[in-house]
């Protein structure tokens, strides 16, 4: 019981300190406002007018957000290029829009190496967007490594689902 109380106290202490970061760097553009779950798209789609937002329209390619990779690989396969290009086109015509490209890996191997590998996957999407003409100021690449798997079984059917980059718009 003591331990629980101690933990609770500590957590609330931490919560109190969390706002007082010593460093006053500008916050990264899309930080804190990105969707947390893959399911967020579907949920919010129900609350908005579908036709009003091409990003949410299931019949629009812009509603597709995920790029999948082979084991240990980070190149964007040709099948995903039309989807990435559609987002690039949207971003070049909506200069106020910003995206986070979130890279993920399967669960095998070093967690830190997987952070780096997930970042390289996200970068491969960003590079494709840059080549199309999207400004770096509209894109932040981040990596979840193996930490936030969409599928949790310990076999290839799940691993391939988790070798993935997601394009998440600011505000989603």
């Amino acid at each position, binding site marked *: 019981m003591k*331990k629980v109380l*101690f*933990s609770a106290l*500590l*957590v609330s*202490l*931490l919560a109190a*300190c969390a706002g*007082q*970061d*010593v*460093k006053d*760097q500008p*916050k*990264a553009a899309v*930080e*804190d406002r*990105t969707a*947390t779950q893959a399911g967020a798209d579907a949920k919010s789609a129900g609350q908005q007018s579908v036709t009003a937002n091409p990003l949410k329209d299931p019949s629009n390619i812009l509603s597709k957000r995920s790029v999948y990779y082979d084991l240990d690989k980070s190149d964007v396969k040709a099948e995903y290029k039309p989807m990435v290009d559609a987002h690039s086109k949207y971003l070049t015509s909506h200069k106020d829009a910003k995206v*986070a490209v979130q890279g993920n890996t399967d669960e*095998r*191997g*070093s*967690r*830190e*190496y997987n*952070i*780096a*590998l997930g*970042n*390289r996957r996200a*970068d491969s999407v960003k590079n494709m967007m840059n080549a199309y003409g999207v400004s770096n100021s509209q894109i*932040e*690449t*981040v*990596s*979840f*490594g193996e*930490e*936030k798997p969409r599928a949790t079984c*310990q076999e290839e059917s799940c691993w391939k689902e988790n070798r993935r980059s997601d394009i998440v718009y600011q505000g989603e």
Partner: protein
Amino acid sequence: MKFLNKLAAALILLAGFPISAAYAALTIEIVGSGANQIPISVVPFAGENALPPGITAVVAADLQRSGLFKIVDPAGVKPEPHDPAEVNYPDWRARGADALAIGSVLPRPDGKLEVRFHLLDAVKQVQLDAYSYVIDRTLARATAHKIADQIYEKLTGDVGVFSTRIAYIVKSGLRYELQVADADGYGAQTVLASKEPIISPSWSPDGTKLAYVSFERKKPIIYVQSLVSGQRQVLAQFKGNNSAPAWSPDGKQLAIVLTKDGSSQIYLINADGSGVKRLGYSSGIDTEPSFSPDGAAIIFTSDRGGSPQIYRMTVSGSGVQRLTFEGNYNVSPRFSPDGKSFTFVQRVNGSSFHVALQDLASGQMQVLTDTRMDEAPSFAPNGKMLLYATEIGGRGVLAAISSDGRVKQRLSTQAGDVREPEWGPLLK
């Protein structure tokens, strides 16, 4: 060492020896033992019942867990000796004990307790060591660990690490907790709880702080948290990822990995978050830095050659040299405390991951573990044991193995996955 040499070599495989865990988050099971076990009897101290959980049970469990001692049961020797003058050495030789730990716990007028301890050589019939500690009642375990450290050091010639602590992450459902516990798994305390992942805890050299990576703001950000006050601050939250913190031996700087300038690269940053400086330049991934004990070199993982391998560079970023050549996936390097070797994780046959050890001078490499999904090895501060994460039955557990591969331990919790362990420093 002389003492040890005189002992007959005996290989005794211990059966599972789970330690009672009423208050523990971690249970430790020994699954192997050293080749040379020193037979020692730890006689219950007079008056130790005044100090729950007692002293000698903890001392004996520490020594046994190291795999280097065989505990000789003292039951039946009458009267139980508590002072060197009361020892009848032939009693102990008859039981096969080469060493004997005896002592007493005495109440003091100020309410504190005095713990007296003697270590005796039962063969030579001489006292090897004697200590007296004046303590509060709450410090029974800590005092027992100190006594075990004294015995270990006197009889093996190496520094004991029973008084050290470990840090690790427990994932239960959707909850992540960064915990710190004694090296024997007792006294676990939650340092941070979060609904988002926490990885890569790293002890400051003085043992008062932990650096770690938290995803609470939807991306990896490095924090430094005081274990004394509980207060924490952001160390690095640059654009992109901030991860893989490693303290320099003087505690003034950390090596970290950032993606603010492109791919994952190694930077140095002051412990207060100021003065970030890029160290390496490669077009590939550079990550998982680890300082040499003298602070002059850093080993790290890089895939600049096409697959992840271990490299070394000076702390100024020059003289980059590849260290591993066997296999196509070598990651998570850590320098040994004496700076002569390093541990890392090697992928074998494309699918299993093992803790390996490589000598820096000879380049000789040895795979230590037979567990299959090993991650994140770190050395005990005396270099004799390695703590790492692995999987048993699909669940994350911690395991430890001696640097000669003989002694093996498993540490597990009743529920949840345990991962990302790091053995803390010796406390001065």
